[in-house]
């Protein structure tokens, strides 16, 4: 009990964060920051405190920079965002990444209590979407978003509305096709049972009746549910490709024709049950293969990273304009934490731009007036004014998207196993079918036709077509549990074929913005001020870090200044001679051996050794397991950052496989080079600068600390916490492929058994009706069991 009380006192009532020494109190409740307290007071004023009853600390910390939504007053932007609007009401859908618990659903669906002008709200939890209907006359979009932001649910508004686009892609009626096929399959099974058990001689009229009904049920299956197979087989045939859909479509067609003839000529019961079952199982397999991650998007490009609108300065006044309307020569205003949307010249203000996401450079860069600032950087500090020199789509960074890697159609980069096999399978199938036809042809024409059709029916590769989807989708859900999200099932197979791994540095193996500087110096305040002044003069990243660490000193005048690239700085301040640099550079004292994992900057003033700053990059936990991959894979480091961590990383990568200061285009070309040498390349990156390389590689993995945040377009998204499991993931993907091979052998065995009946021309419908579901059932249970066993062995579940 006591423990709970203490807990209550030290953690924020709203968000559950640890409250620092200074906390804010209201209504005997403790808050970590003003933002959290404000959210609470809004909720309590409106009688919405049940929010806190459903979950403990349901809020999200409000300690973040204030956002500006001014652009939501622009009619042209509004009309792009809303779903529907008339004089009475407007409907809009927002993506809110912070939705995470039942309290969120409750609160967002009670927005009406805070502002009655909002008629109703509907939350889609998995998609993290909220659909809002509000009164057009009483409240504006700007106010709605402001309200959401005020209660701690800031919508993520981006130019590229990925979520809505995803919803459009899904309309191919697969579910309806399954429903129709399932409906017909069930009814046909029912009507076929009397035939299996035998119908007595004086009930022959029923046989006729059931036959007609069966045929009727086959029609919607053939003309509605299985159309996809015929279309796909036809397009592939036109492109001179034999894929698995061809024998499937052939099987379906032959099944129907033979069923129709047998029933119409009253010569037999036909294969209606097999036909419906086949189409039903195949469609289910297709459905299983289609995994959707509602909250993830693999197709993002720079547009979802950039803001929706920018503040344009015209005639001394500011107004927001949509990003696409920005023209060369216009002046724009960028505030703290905003992203520079186009290449521009700095006109006014102190620009300290964080390019970590764009170039991989880990430290903010100072820009001087008149210098070109490239798009994609994030301004930290005061507001700056810029003049646009290139349109958004032609800027340094965004021009990467004009590369052919982005424009060529996204085909499967490597042929999947089932694609490779199905070609030979189809050829063998046709040879057997025609072979058995010509063997019987001289003696018995009806029997030859019956053998020919029987082969096509029995060898229809249903189980084969199902083995890959079921195995891979089981593998996908296992990866999913380990925070590794693959775009689709073919990615698993590509993962198994990789032989080269290329990693980005900043944000991928280091955690961006998390560098620890610790000082081991004995210096007076004036000496610290001198060190600060020297470092402030330098643009070297380490100097910047030291400046950040020492923080608020007044810069002193420097009499002379000399920087030896890669070694250090000498400077003279008020007669004092200061040296800042590597241990070798300051040779006044003998230093003990330093560890390789750290970067150190040593200081001496007037030839007297003061001490050193130790700068430690935080590497992800996974760095050790990445190291272990070097035995089976070729590892490369490809960074946009400077090479000052080369030493520290030499334990993971070999010296000649580390490349620094690479531009986004060079990264893409590097991957292409490797591929031309016959390597299967996996690229792991996080920033926009990796986008080209991710796209070009055989398998691009975007690594992120928060899957709801922006990540560049890729084949897979990996949560930073799971980087350490990467070697296991790679092994497991090989296991999954092995399961596919084995299940392929099993289904082939069934086919061979069935064929031995078929070639003789004496295929009874009962055998076909038993063999098909039996093989399907075996494959489904084998693949899911084997995949889960493999995952258990690898300790993934």
């Amino acid at each position: 009990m006591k423990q709970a009380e203490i807990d209550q006192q030290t953690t924020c009532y709203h968000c559950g964060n640890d409250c620092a020494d200074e906390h804010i109190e209201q209504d005997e409740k403790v808050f970590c920051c003003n933002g959290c307290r404000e959210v609470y007071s809004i909720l309590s004023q409106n009688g919405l405190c049940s929010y806190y009853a459903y979950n403990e600390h349901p809020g999200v910390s409000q300690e973040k920079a204030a956002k500006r939504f001014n652009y939501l007053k622009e009619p042209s932007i509004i009309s792009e965002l809303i779903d529907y609007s008339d004089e009475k009401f407007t409907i809009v859908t927002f993506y809110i990444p912070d939705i995470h618990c039942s309290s969120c659903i409750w609160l967002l669906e009670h927005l009406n209590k805070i502002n009655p002008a909002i008629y109703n709200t509907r939350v889609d939890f998995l998609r993290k979407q909220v659909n809002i209907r509000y009164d057009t006359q009483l409240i504006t979009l700007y106010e709605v978003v402001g309200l959401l932001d005020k209660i701690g649910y800031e919508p993520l508004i981006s130019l590229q509305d990925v979520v809505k686009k995803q919803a459009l892609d899904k309309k191919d009626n697969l579910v309806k096709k399954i429903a129709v096929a399932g409906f017909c399959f069930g009814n046909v099974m029912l009507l076929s049972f009397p035939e299996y058990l035998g119908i007595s001689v004086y009930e022959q009229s029923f046989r006729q009746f059931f036959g007609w009904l069966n045929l009727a049920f086959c029609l919607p299956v053939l003309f509605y549910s299985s159309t996809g197979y015929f279309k796909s087989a036809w397009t592939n045939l036109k492109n001179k490709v034999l894929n698995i859909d061809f024998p499937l479509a052939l099987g379906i067609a032959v099944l129907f024709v033979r069923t129709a003839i047998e029933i119409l000529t009253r010569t037999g019961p036909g294969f209606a049950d097999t036909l419906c079952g086949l189409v039903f199982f195949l469609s289910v397999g297709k459905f299983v293969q289609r995994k959707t991650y509602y909250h993830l998007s693999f197709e993002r490009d720079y547009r979802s990273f950039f803001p929706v609108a920018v503040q344009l300065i015209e005639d001394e006044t500011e107004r927001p304009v949509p990003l696409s309307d920005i023209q060369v020569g216009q002046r724009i205003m960028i505030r703290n934490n905003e992203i520079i949307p186009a290449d521009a010249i700095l006109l006014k203000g102190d620009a300290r731009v964080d390019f970590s996401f764009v170039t991989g450079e880990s430290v903010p860069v100072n820009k001087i007036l008149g210098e070109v600032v490239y798009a994609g950087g994030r301004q930290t500090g005061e507001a700056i004014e810029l003049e646009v020199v290139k349109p958004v789509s032609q800027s340094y960074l965004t021009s990467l998207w004009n590369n052919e890697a982005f424009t060529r159609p996204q085909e499967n980069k490597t042929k999947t196993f089932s694609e490779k096999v199905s070609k030979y399978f189809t050829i063998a199938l046709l040879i057997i079918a025609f072979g058995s036809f010509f063997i019987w042809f001289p003696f018995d024409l009806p029997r030859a036709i019956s053998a020919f059709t029987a082969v096509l029916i029995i060898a229809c590769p249903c189980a084969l077509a199902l083995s890959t989807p079921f195995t891979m989708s089981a593998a996908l859900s296992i990866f999913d549990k380990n925070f590794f999200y693959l775009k689709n099932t073919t990615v698993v197979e590509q993962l198994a074929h990789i032989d080269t791994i290329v990693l980005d540095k900043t944000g991928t193996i280091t955690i961006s913005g998390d560098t620890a500087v610790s000082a081991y110096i004995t210096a007076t305040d004036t000496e610290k001020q001198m060190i600060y002044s020297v470092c402030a003069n330098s643009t070297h990243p380490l100097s910047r870090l030291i400046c950040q660490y020492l923080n608020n000193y007044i810069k002193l005048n420097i009499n002379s200044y000399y920087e030896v690239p890669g070694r250090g700085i000498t400077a003279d301040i008020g007669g004092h001679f200061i040296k800042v640099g590597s241990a070798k550079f300051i040779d006044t004292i003998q230093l003990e051996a330093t560890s390789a994992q750290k970067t150190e900057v040593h200081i001496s003033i007037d030839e007297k050794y003061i001490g050193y700053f130790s700068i430690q990059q935080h590497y992800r936990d996974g760095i050790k397991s990445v190291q272990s991959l070097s035995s089976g894979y070729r590892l490369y480091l490809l960074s946009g950052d400077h090479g000052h961590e080369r030493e520290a990383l030499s334990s993971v990568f070999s010296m000649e496989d580390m490349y620094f200061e690479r531009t986004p285009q060079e990264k893409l070309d590097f991957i292409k080079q490797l591929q031309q040498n016959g390597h299967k390349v996996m690229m792991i990156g996080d920033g926009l600068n990796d986008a080209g390389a991710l796209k070009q590689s055989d398998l691009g993995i975007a690594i992120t600390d928060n899957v709801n945040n922006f990540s560049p377009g890729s084949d897979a998204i990996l949560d930073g916490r799971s980087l350490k499991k990467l070697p296991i993931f790679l092994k497991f993907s090989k296991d999954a492929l092995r399961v596919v091979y084995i299940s392929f052998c099993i289904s082939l065995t069934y086919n061979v058994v069935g064929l031995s009946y078929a070639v003789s021309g004496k295929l009874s419908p009962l055998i076909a009706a038993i063999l098909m579901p039996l093989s399907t059932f075996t494959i489904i249970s084998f693949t899911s069991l084997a995949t889960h066993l493999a995952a258990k062995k690898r300790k993934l579940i």
Partner: protein
Amino acid sequence: MSIIYFLIGCSVLLALVFLGAFFWAQRNGQHDDLYTPSVRILLDDEPEETDPKK
């Protein structure tokens, strides 16, 4: 045994009704969000007047 004709007709008709119901639900978007309703049903309605004690 001619009752069989009638019974089968009934069963097929009933099955068609269910298929139609499924189609209707699909078109109406009832399968769009399969998770949130399961949470929503557990959330209580607010009492009409706010609790005076507290």
